[in-house]
């Protein structure tokens, strides 16, 4: 803000001095030039009247000649003064207006406004660098869960897009280069409420720069980065970047999971789905035949490794094997023609991966291959979000869209960190375990993906439970799973995980006794969360669930009751 004031003052120096000089010369001239009064006597205008006259002359021109009619000499001088002062005014006002329109000035104003807004933030927020496809998907998902975010992007156009977006939370956006630490600080990197930095720009080096800036200036911050190459990934990991997400590798892991444990994969899909999305169908990637992989780029390489690990025979189709370093026995060709696909024995294949970096080619590969072999299991790599309609129309079994994969992963990490832990642990469970859980979830929700929420047993989020625990009463997990309106009914929800310091339990037992500081992960219907809020926060509701009766309500009775409880507990201990 200081900058702006100084900028205005500095630029306004010359125009202001011009006005002062023009005024003083005009006033002085009027004082010195003799006039005649009504009786024909010589009179000299004094400073007071001269200043009065010049003041209105320069702004309005023409109030009449006061206090007496002017002599011709005075009129001549006034002609000169009129032009001089009017020009001086136009000059000053013009300078001021051009200053207001100056891009540097505008930028200074915007940055000042943005910085003040960030300063005023009183809730935790995430700093998202890069508002491209991934960034916008992430921001939407975060605001959907009532989380706050701040955006930096180098492109003014995208910041305009952000402002037009109809988001549930206000998201401040700054058009600036995120690789410059100054701008990161302006955007709240050092703000005590800043909960994490997400680097999503499409330039690897910039992401690296953001990661290292954040780790140096605010070391305890969670830093999540997108990385498209192994070098950058290793570099980021070297200074402790918390999460590095490579979309191709992430997707390859998905494919491998789907092959090894279809139910675990389905569980992942269900729990991480966007709210209100329809339940995805289970996938069974075939393993009883060979696969054709078109395009041996970053995506192709990541997937090839996984397919080989699965023990599948894989034929690579690559247009430029020398540049991409494809194995020697690959089929050379674009894959969009029937000839190359036939060379790869597409007729006998069970699966096809259309993995080039060109959407149109990928779609063409799928169409051609399906004509030759309609039963193929198809994996499509979609590069641009704008191609959504045609990518949907081709109806591939799995679609790999880098932006949505990164956004989805970061959304889970930021919005529901417990879920991220849960999914990590779930990978170590067998498929049967996942199948049981899936059938339980299906029993709760019929068509939509289950709602996921976290509960922490603390004073703010679980007042009633904390009060009960402090009174020495026991609260079981089953109490939270009970409908607070009718204690014989259960809420449509499942407790997925319970974490205590140094201890994590998957699918905790209902008889578990809750303790202060516990963190729980639930999934279920939307309505279940708001019901559970009652048992967590309302002492009367919790007492009803635990005992079936209601605790005394009046102030006196409540005190007596608490004293009685304490006395009884003390008695049992001794």
């Amino acid at each position: 803000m200081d900058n702006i004031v100084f900028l205005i003052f500095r630029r306004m120096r010359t125009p202001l001095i011009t006005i002062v000089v023009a005024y003083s010369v005009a006033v002085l001239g009027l004082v010195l030039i003799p006039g005649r009064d009504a009786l024909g006597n010589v009179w000299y205008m004094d400073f007071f009247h001269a200043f009065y006259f010049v003041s209105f002359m320069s702004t309005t021109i023409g109030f009449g000649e006061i206090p007496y009619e002017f002599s011709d000499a005075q009129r001549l001088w006034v002609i000169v003064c009129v032009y001089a002062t009017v020009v001086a005014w136009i000059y000053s006002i013009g300078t001021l207006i051009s200053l207001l329109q100056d891009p540097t000035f505008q930028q200074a104003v915007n940055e000042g406004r943005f910085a003040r807004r960030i300063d005023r933030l009183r809730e935790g927020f995430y700093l998202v660098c890069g508002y491209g496809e991934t960034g916008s998907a992430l921001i939407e998902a975060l605001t959907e869960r009532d989380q706050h975010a701040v955006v930096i992007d180098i492109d003014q156009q995208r910041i305009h897009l952000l402002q037009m977006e109809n988001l549930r939370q206000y998201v401040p956006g700054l058009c600036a280069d995120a690789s410059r630490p100054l701008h990161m600080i302006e955007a709240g990197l050092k703000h005590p409420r800043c909960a994490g930095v997400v680097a999503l720009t499409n330039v690897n080096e910039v992401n690296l720069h953001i990661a290292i800036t954040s780790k140096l200036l605010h070391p305890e911050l969670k830093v999540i980065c997108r990385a498209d190459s192994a070098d950058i990934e290793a570099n980021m990991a070297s200074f402790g970047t918390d999460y590095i997400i490579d979309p191709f590798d992430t997707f390859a892991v998905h494919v491998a999971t789907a092959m090894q444990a279809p139910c675990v994969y389905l569980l992942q899909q269900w729990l991480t789905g966007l709210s209100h999305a329809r339940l995805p169908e289970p996938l069974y990637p075939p393993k009883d035949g060979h696969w054709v992989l078109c395009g041996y780029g970053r995506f192709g390489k990541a997937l090839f490794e996984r397919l080989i690990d699965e023990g599948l025979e894989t034929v690579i189709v690559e247009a430029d094997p020398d540049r991409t370093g494809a194995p020697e026995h690959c089929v050379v060709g674009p894959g969009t023609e029937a000839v190359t696909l036939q060379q790869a024995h597409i007729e006998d294949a069970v699966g096809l991966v259309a993995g080039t970096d060109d959407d149109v080619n990928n779609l063409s590969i799928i169409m051609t291959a399906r004509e030759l072999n309609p039963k193929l299991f198809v994996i499509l790599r979609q590069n641009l979000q704008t191609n959504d309609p045609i990518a949907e129309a081709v109806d591939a079994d799995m679609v790999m869209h880098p932006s949505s994969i990164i956004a989805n992963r970061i959304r889970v990490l930021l919005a529901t960190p417990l879920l991220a832990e849960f999914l990590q642990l779930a990978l170590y469970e067998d498929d049967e375990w996942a199948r049981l859980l899936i059938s339980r979830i299906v029993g709760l929700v019929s068509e939509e993906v289950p709602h996921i929420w976290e509960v922490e047993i603390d004073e703010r989020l679980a007042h009633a439970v904390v009060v009960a625990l402090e009174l020495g009463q026991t609260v079981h997990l089953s109490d939270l799973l009970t409908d607070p309106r009718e204690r014989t009914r259960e809420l449509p929800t499942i407790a997925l995980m319970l974490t205590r310091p140094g201890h994590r339990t998957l699918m905790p037992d209902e008889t578990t006794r809750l303790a202060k500081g516990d963190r729980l992960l639930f999934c279920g219907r939307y309505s279940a969360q708001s019901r559970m809020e009652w048992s967590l926060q309302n002492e009367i509701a919790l007492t009803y669930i635990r005992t079936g009766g209601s605790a005394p309500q009046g102030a006196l009775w409540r005190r007596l009751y608490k004293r009685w409880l304490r006395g009884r507990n003390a008695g049992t201990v001794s």
Partner: protein
Amino acid sequence: MNPEKVIFGFFIVLALTLNFGFFVGELDNPEHHHVYELFAVVVVNLIATVLKFGDRTQMGAVLLATSLVAVLQLFAAALVWAVAVHISETGLTPAVTASIVSLTGGAMLANVISVVLLVIETVMLRR
């Protein structure tokens, strides 16, 4: 030599000298204090003030403050003069003259501080 500094110094010193010129003489004798001189003091002080705009240093801020004080005092003096001569028609009695001159005396003090600061800054620069 920086021409900007020359002009800057020129106006600041001129503001002080003109102010002094108006101030000297018997305090309540209108003969000793000419209104043209008061006009010149006001104009030069205004220019000096504007010249001090937009300096971000601590010294610049204090210089601007002294100038603003001087301009305020001089405006008060000019107002007293205008009221006495034109509005209340009492004319330049010794009492009125004394108050005008003492107001400009205050302005002169501010101008002195301004010049002293300028000299100090210059000396610091030499080192």
